[in-house]
């Protein structure tokens, strides 16, 4: 064929993993291992009070020092990672699933569903995200479960909006028109043709969103609206340590660094996925 032969550039596989993403995956994997193995690794019971050893600085016995009631900060950071990791998953998955479903329906079928959704969207973005979640949690009562509930109540809207925007473009593409012309059932078109092409940016967004969820979770713990003491959670630990930060900086420092490193794992992964998405689009 005289027609330009298949582009020699063997189309870059969208699944290529960049070095940065490798770093991100190892951070996340590392935290997962630490969280699962916390009972084995932790040198102390995270809740064991030891009045004789309160506010002792980092040492060979207590790597990260102890807090105001003598609990081992290292053990607590490890156990807290279980709460915070779970928080990331529980705070991202429900909005992701609900939002994607509604976004697909709203974008593909339009009509009443779409109108109603867009009004809900307009209304939700009128509230500062943090304030709305805070107000809902405050009214429902502090606690992790209510935090997740509020997060889902507010968060699905962004996912739905993103999916809807994707679907609006995909819906107009000729391969969807062809699928309709070929008489495929709407459910098959949505599941087999629309969703796989719409989901990429959503996954990238969800991973980046995990950072926001973790930070929000820690912030709520800090404000006393999320996880409740004595449960070990990074935000709660930082809040506990705030009063003693003059004498014992280590109580606050280590949970914060833990939060940053986990956040970095998600953020770098999200960034890498986003870049692959963009490259995939231009390729």
């Amino acid at each position, binding site marked *: 064929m005289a027609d330009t032969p298949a582009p020699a550039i063997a189309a870059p596989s969208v699944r290529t993993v960049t070095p940065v993403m490798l770093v991100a995956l190892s951070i996340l994997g590392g935290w997962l291992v630490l969280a699962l193995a916390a009972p084995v690794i932790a040198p102390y019971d995270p809740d064991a009070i030891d009045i004789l050893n309160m506010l002792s600085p980092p040492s060979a016995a207590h790597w990260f020092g102890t807090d105001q009631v003598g609990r081992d900060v290292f053990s607590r950071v490890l156990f807290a990672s279980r709460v915070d990791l779970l928080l990331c998953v529980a705070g991202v998955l429900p909005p992701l699933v609900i939002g994607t479903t509604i976004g697909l329906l709203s974008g593909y079928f339009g009509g009443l569903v779409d109108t109603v959704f867009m*009004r809900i969207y*307009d*209304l939700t*973005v*009128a*509230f*500062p*995200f*943090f*304030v*709305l979640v*805070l*107000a*809902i*949690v*405050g*009214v*429902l*009562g502090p606690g992790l479960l209510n935090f997740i509930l509020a997060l889902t109540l507010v968060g699905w809207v962004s996912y739905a909006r993103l999916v809807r925007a994707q679907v609006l473009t995909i819906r107009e593409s000729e391969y969807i028109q062809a699928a309709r012309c070929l008489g495929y059932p709407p459910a098959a078109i949505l599941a087999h043709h629309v969703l796989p092409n719409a989901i990429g940016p959503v996954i990238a967004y969800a991973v980046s969103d995990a*950072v926001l969820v973790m*930070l929000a979770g*820690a*912030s709520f713990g*800090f*404000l*006393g*609206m999320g996880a409740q003491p004595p449960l070990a959670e*990074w*935000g709660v630990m*930082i809040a506990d*340590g*705030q009063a003693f*930060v*003059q004498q014992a*900086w280590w109580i*606050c*420092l280590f*949970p*914060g660094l833990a*939060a*940053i490193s986990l*956040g*970095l794992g*998600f*953020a*770098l992964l999200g*960034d890498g996925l986003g870049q692959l998405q963009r490259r995939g689009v231009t390729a």
Partner: protein
Amino acid sequence: MPLLQLLVRRLLQLIGVLAGISLVTFLLVHMAPGDPARLLAGERASAETVAAIRSQYGLDLPLWRQFLTYLANLLSGDIGLSLRFQRPVIQLIEQFMWPTLFLTAYVLCLAIPPTVALAILGARRPGGIADQIIRLVGIAGLTIPVFWLGIMMSRFFGVSLGWFPVSGYGVGFTGHLHHLFLPAVSTAIWLVPVLTQSLRAALIEKTAADFVTAARAQGATERQIFWQTMLPNAVLPTLNLLGVMVAFMIGGAVIVETVYAVPGLGTLMVNALLGRDYYVVQGLTLVFAVSTVLITLTVDLLTAFIDPRVRL
């Protein structure tokens, strides 16, 4: 005039959104577990007192009637009464809003110059060393919990070095500047990466834009191209993001103000939440939402002013 048309249409939209906001804030308090009348009356009030309060506040009426009363109150400027302070919420907000507004403006002044500089630096050679560093540091900046950074900074700059006060609002303009420096920096450290990423991406996108090639083909120098063609076109998406971020910051003030004990709306909000002072929460949520809507409106008008294509 398209601008006038836009304004009218946006104002009409605004009314719908405001109605929605009032409904949500109304329902917010009704979501609260427990009896609002009991809350108003206090823990130890007798059943008769509670019943009296219930009919006095119209809490025995059907929900839609209560909502209408709420709407009517809103229209007359009454957004509720604080149970704890026994003062109208509007008065409390007037009292507490200045530190928050000052802080917001302060953050913007601190954040915008480095944003523009870093974005230009990064976009000048996309993928270069400077760009990579800016990008990675930016990503790292996003992951720092603001409250933790606040505590660490106040411990280091405030307590160890004694350069800045670690709490309060100060007296007079310079006093405010001095007291709010650490809170403003902690917020800016998080804001700058977000804005830089957006502006950088827009600049890089415009570098490859056809109209830039055309300007080059007409003999424009690189400097002229950057300032006259690329920057104005790249600034629009960032402007929109800035609007979103300012709204976000007003909300995020809750955290920073708590850490640095700034007597602003955020502190008021947290105290009201912890003290179950629901009408203050309701009033504040309403005010936050209305400010967000106004900020979005301002950004839209500004965008329409810069970009002749915008019509909505």
